[in-house]
C-alpha cells in the first residue's frame, strides 16, 4: 500500500478555496443574487431584480481571502507565529487594573455632565448626557439582573417584565392618584419585588432551560396584559403626561418657584437632564452598594452556593426556595426602581418599550460583562449601549457591527470580560480572584 500523495501547498490551497467559493456561490446565488422589489410607478407590481455582480464579488472575496489564509497560515508547515492574543491584556483585565478602571469610571461619571457642558455648551452636550443616562439605566438593570443570573445562577429571560411593572406602577399611580415620583419610587420597587415573588413561586421549581423558557413567557404575559388592558393602561397608546421629578419640591420649570429661579440661575432645560443624570447615577450606585454588601452576607453567599451546587445547599440546611425567591425579588425590585425612573424621564411609556429584545440586551450586558462581575457590567453597558448609539450613522450596518462585537467578545473571553470571582470573605490580606474555570454558571 502506498501512502496517499500529499498535495503541494499551492494545489491544496486552491482545492480548499475552490470548495469555499462553490459554497459561497450556492448560498449567494439565491440570497444575494435575486431580490424581489415593488416597482415604483407601475402600481404595486412585484418584480425580480438580479444582482449578479454582487454574487461575483462575494465569491471572489471568499476565494481570495481563503486562498490567502491557506497559503500563508493554514496549509503551511511553518505558519508564521502571530500571537493575536498577546495583543490583548493577559487573562482579561487584571485585579489592579480592574480597580483602576473602577475608580476611573466613578470619577468620570461624577464629572461627566459638567465636563460636557464645559466643552460643548448646554445645547451641544444634551444628546451626550441623554446617552449617558441611557447607559446608566442599563448599568442599573444589568446590576439588578446580575443578582439573579450572576450570583444565584437563575437564567431569567423575562427581566424586562419587572422593568415594565416599575414603569407602569409609577405612571398609573401618578395618573390615577396623582402621587409624586419620590413617593412612587419605593412603591414601584416594592410592587416589582412583589410580582417577582408571585412569578417566582411557581417558576423556581424548574431548572436551567425550563426556567429560562417560563420566565420568557411570564415576561411576555406582562407585556401582553399591558397591551390589551385598554381601559386601565391605555393599551398600545401608552400613558403620556407622566409627571417629572422635582428636586426637593422644586420643579424644573421656568419662572417663579422653579429650580433655576430658586438658585438664581438662568432657566435652561439642561438642568433637568443633569438632575436626571445624577438621579439614575445615585440609583445605580445604590444598586451596586446593596449588591456588594449582600454578597458578603449569608444570603449572598447562599446565592453563590446555590449557583455552585443546589443539592449541597439543601444538605447544609439552606432553604433553597426562599433563597431563590429573595434573589428573584431583589433583582425585580431594582428593575422596578429603574422602571419608574424610565417613566419619569420619558414622560411617556407604552408596551413597545418592554419587548423581549430589552430582556435580551440586558442579559447580553450581564453575560458579556462576566457573570457576577459588577465592573464588567459597566464596561459591557458602555460598549453595547454607547457603541450602539454612536454608530447610528452607520444605519443598516449597525446591527452587523453589534453582532460582530458580541461574537468577538465571546470568542475572546467566553466567560465575559471580567470573569474572575472575588471571594466574599478571606483570612489573608492579599486574596487572588478565583478563575472562571472553577466557577459554575448555575443551572437554575
Amino acid at each position, binding site marked *: 500500500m502506498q501512502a496517499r500523495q500529499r498535495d503541494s501547498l499551492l494545489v491544496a490551497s486552491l482545492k480548499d478555496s475552490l470548495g469555499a467559493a462553490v459554497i459561497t456561490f450556492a448560498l449567494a446565488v439565491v440570497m444575494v443574487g435575486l431580490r424581489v422589489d415593488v416597482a415604483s410607478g407601475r402600481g404595486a407590481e412585484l418584480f425580480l431584480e438580479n444582482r449578479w455582480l454582487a454574487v461575483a464579488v462575494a465569491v471572489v472575496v471568499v476565494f481570495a481571502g481563503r486562498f490567502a489564509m491557506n497559503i500563508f497560515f493554514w496549509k503551511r508547515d511553518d505558519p508564521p507565529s502571530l500571537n493575536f492574543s498577546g495583543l490583548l491584556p493577559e487573562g482579561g483585565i487584571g485585579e489592579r487594573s480592574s480597580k483602576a478602571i473602577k475608580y476611573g469610571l466613578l470619577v468620570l461619571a461624577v464629572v461627566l455632565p459638567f465636563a460636557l457642558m464645559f466643552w460643548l455648551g448646554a445645547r451641544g452636550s444634551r444628546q451626550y448626557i441623554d446617552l449617558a443616562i441611557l447607559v446608566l439605566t442599563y448599568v442599573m438593570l444589568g446590576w439588578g439582573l446580575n443578582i439573579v443570573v450572576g450570583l444565584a445562577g437563575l437564567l431569567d429571560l423575562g427581566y424586562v417584565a419587572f422593568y415594565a411593572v416599575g414603569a407602569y406602577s409609577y405612571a398609573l399611580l401618578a395618573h390615577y392618584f396623582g402621587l409624586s415620583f419620590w413617593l412612587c419610587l419605593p412603591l414601584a420597587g416594592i410592587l416589582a419585588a412583589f410580582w417577582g415573588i408571585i412569578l417566582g413561586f411557581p417558576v423556581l421549581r424548574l431548572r436551567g432551560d425550563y426556567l429560562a423558557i417560563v420566565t420568557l413567557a411570564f415576561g411576555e404575559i406582562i407585556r401582553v396584559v399591558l397591551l390589551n388592558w385598554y381601559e386601565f393602561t391605555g393599551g398600545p397608546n401608552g400613558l403620556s403626561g407622566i409627571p417629572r421629578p422635582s428636586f426637593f419640591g422644586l420643579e424644573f420649570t421656568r419662572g417663579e418657584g422653579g429650580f433655576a429661579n430658586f438658585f438664581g440661575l438662568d432657566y435652561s432645560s439642561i438642568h433637568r437632564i443633569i438632575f436626571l443624570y445624577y438621579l439614575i447615577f445615585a440609583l445605580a450606585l445604590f444598586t451596586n452598594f446593596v449588591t456588594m454588601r449582600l454578597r458578603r452576607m449569608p444570603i449572598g453567599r447562599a446565592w453563590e*452556593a446555590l449557583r455552585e451546587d443546589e443539592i*449541597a445547599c439543601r444538605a447544609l440546611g439552606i432553604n433553597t426556595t426562599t433563597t431563590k425567591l429573595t434573589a428573584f425579588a431583589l433583582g425585580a425590585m431594582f428593575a422596578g426602581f429603574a422602571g419608574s425612573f424610565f417613566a419619569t424621564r420619558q414622560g411617556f411609556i407604552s408596551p413597545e418599550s418592554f419587548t423581549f429584545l430589552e430582556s435580551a440586551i440586558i442579559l447580553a450586558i450581564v453575560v458579556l460583562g462576566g457573570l457576577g462581575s459588577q465592573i464588567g457590567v459597566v464596561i459591557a453597558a458602555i460598549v453595547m449601549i454607547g457603541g450602539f448609539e454612536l454608530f447610528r450613522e452607520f444605519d443598516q450596518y449597525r446591527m452587523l457591527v453589534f453582532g460582530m462585537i458580541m461574537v468577538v467578545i465571546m470568542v475572546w473571553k467566553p466567560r465575559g470580560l471580567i470573569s474572575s470571582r472575588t471571594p466574599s470573605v478571606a483570612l489573608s490580606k492579599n486574596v487572588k480572584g478565583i478563575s472562571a474555570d472553577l466557577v459554575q454558571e448555575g443551572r437554575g
Partner: protein
Amino acid sequence: MNTWDNNPVLKVEHLTMRFGGLTAINDLSFNVGRGDITALIGPNGAGKTTVFNCITGFYKPTEGRLVMNRSSDEKHLLERMSDFKITADAKVARTFQNIRLFGGMTILENLMVAQHNRLMIASNWTIGGLLGLGGYRKSNLDAIETARYWLERIELIDRADAPAADLSYGDQRRLEIARAMCTGPELLCLDEPAAGLNPKESLELNNLLQYIRKEHDTSVVLIEHDMSVVMEISDHVVVLDYGVKISDGTPEFVKNDPHVIAAYLGVEDGEVELVEEEVGL
C-alpha cells in the same frame, strides 16, 4: 446492653423504600447509638445510599419511621421533614459519595455557607446586617473562628483562601466533613468517606472521625467498603444485602457472622441449600 439499644440517637423502624416495582429497602430496622460510630456495610447495590437518602430527606420513604432523638430530648420524625429542615432543625448532616463542594468558592467560604442559618438569624434575615445593626458583625467573626477551628483540624488553614476545586481528592473529602460539622450536627452521615484515599489519608480520616465523636458529641453513621476502616473505628456494624438487614452487632460479631461471610464471599457448594433454606428461598 449496648448503646444503640440503650440510648439511640436515631431509630430506623420498618423502613421500606420502593422505586416503582423495585424494593430497594425492605422492612429495615436498626438503631444508631449516641456517641457511637456506626458503619453501614454491604455489597454493591445493597441499598446503603438509599438508607442515607431516606435519613437525610432526599428520598421520602414508602413506609416506616425515622426517629431522631436530639440530646435536648426533642424528637423529630425525619420522614415527615423536608431535606433542608432535617439539617437545620433535626441536626443531621451528611456528605456525598461523589464530593459536592462549592468548587468556585474558597475553602473558607464553603465553611461559612455551612453556618448559613445561624448567621441569617444573627443578621435579622439580612435586614439587620444590611443596616449594620445588632450582633451580626460579632456572629460573622464567630463564624470565621469556627471555620478557622475546623480548618486547623483538617490541616487546611494555609489554603483557606484557595478555591475548593483546587484541592486534592483527599483534602476535598476532609473539607466536606468539616463543612458538614460546621452545621453543628448531632448525627453525621458520611457516604463512603474513605473511597479513593491512600492509606495515610485513610488513617488521618480515622483520627478525624474519632476526634469528632469524642470532642463534639456527634454520632457518626458511615457507609464504607474499606473493611480496615470499618473494623478499626466502628462500634457498631449493620450489614445490608438486597435491602434487608442480614447482621447487626459489634464488629467482632459481624466479622464472624456466617450470613455476612456468605453475602460477601459466597458459600461452599455443600452449604448452598442450607443457606437458601435460612434466607427463605
